[in-house]
């Protein structure tokens, strides 16, 4: 027998790959919401430690450490890459087959470079899109990059979102809003002039 509970929604599964400062901040924010949060890191012990930290702070949060990027991306409705850009490219290649038509949120790496040349945020998005042509790429930049996110109790206050898929931008923005993170702006990546739209 199943009790009828009106207004229940399917719990979305969100995968955060990377448990550095920004990955921690995002995971801590999402753990406040009604999401099934999966955390993965090439160093599994780091992911486990972060999950334990989050569960210590909020006993009922639905977070889980995962070992395999491919399987956890397959399970997820949305994937967040909180890694440096070179690692994002590596992971994108690994999970390519299972992120078709899904939303992938890429954290802008301000220090990304190739052969000594800096790679702009827009170029990073373009390169990821080339690797994942049928995935909806949304870029996320923390609005307060100077904040120290090293402890699990700290979470994001505001972000800047960019992307070409309006629906995907809306979904990411409302997901973040549901956990108290304000999306300050969105901008179309294809628009080189950088026209911005306030949400």
């Amino acid at each position, binding site marked *: 027998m*199943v*009790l009828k509970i009106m207004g*229940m929604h*399917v719990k979305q599964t969100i995968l955060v790959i990377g448990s550095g400062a920004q990955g921690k901040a995002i995971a801590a924010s999402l753990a406040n919401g009604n999401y099934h949060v999966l955390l993965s890191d090439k160093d599994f012990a780091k992911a486990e430690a972060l999950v334990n930290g989050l569960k210590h702070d909020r006993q009922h949060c639905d977070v889980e450490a995962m070992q395999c990027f491919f399987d956890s991306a397959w399970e997820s409705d949305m994937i967040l890459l909180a890694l440096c850009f070179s690692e994002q490219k590596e992971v994108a290649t690994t999970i390519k087959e*299972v992120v078709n038509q*899904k939303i992938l949120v890429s954290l802008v790496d301000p220090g990304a470079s190739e052969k000594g040349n800096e790679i702009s945020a827009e170029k990073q998005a373009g390169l990821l899109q080339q690797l994942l*042509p049928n995935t909806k790429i949304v870029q996320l930049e923390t609005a307060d990059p100077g904040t120290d996110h090293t402890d699990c109790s700290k979470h994001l206050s505001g972000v800047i979102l960019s992307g070409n898929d309006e629906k995907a931008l809306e979904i990411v923005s409302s997901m973040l809003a549901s956990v108290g993170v304000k999306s300050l702006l969105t901008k179309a990546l294809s628009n080189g002039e950088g026209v911005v739209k306030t949400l």
Partner: protein
Amino acid sequence: MHEVFFTKLRESITLTEEEEAIFRTYLLPKKIRKKQYILQEGDACKYAIFVEKGLLRSYTVNEKGNDQIVQFALEGWWITDMYSFITGEPARYNIDALEESELVLISNAALEELRQRIPKFLEFSFLQMRSAYIAFEKRLSYMNLNTEERYKKMVETYPDIVQRVPQHMIASYLGLTAETLSRARKQMSARK
């Protein structure tokens, strides 16, 4: 990936390699755990769901709080809340996994685009709709039978489901209580 899906597709229509590649770009792969929902009553049903591996069920909950199973979906079957999928209105059914499952999801918009880009896909859609209608009619026809006949028909038509699904769910699908089905099964085996 999506081997069962393309095997089924090729049984109905012939696709060139290029068409198959186009087709793949629209498919959303999703793995779900046992007891996990893919749709809940009240949400808009955004996807037609193809079962690549595993087993799903759709059900509604009656006023007494009992679940009434409408459909099971095994490997190679489609499942969705058709009304909600077509109209965008809130779903009347819940869909969850009875086993860990690998699914292929297609949105309504993707289906429309596929019909435009690969016109022979229309033929596939028609054949799938026809199968769904036949299965629906078959289930309705069960309701005119007595308890034993309903169960026998179920065993004959869907032996895999009977093997993999608990008896109380079979009872729910057949519109019976678990006790009624259990009694009928005992009587049937006593006569053997």
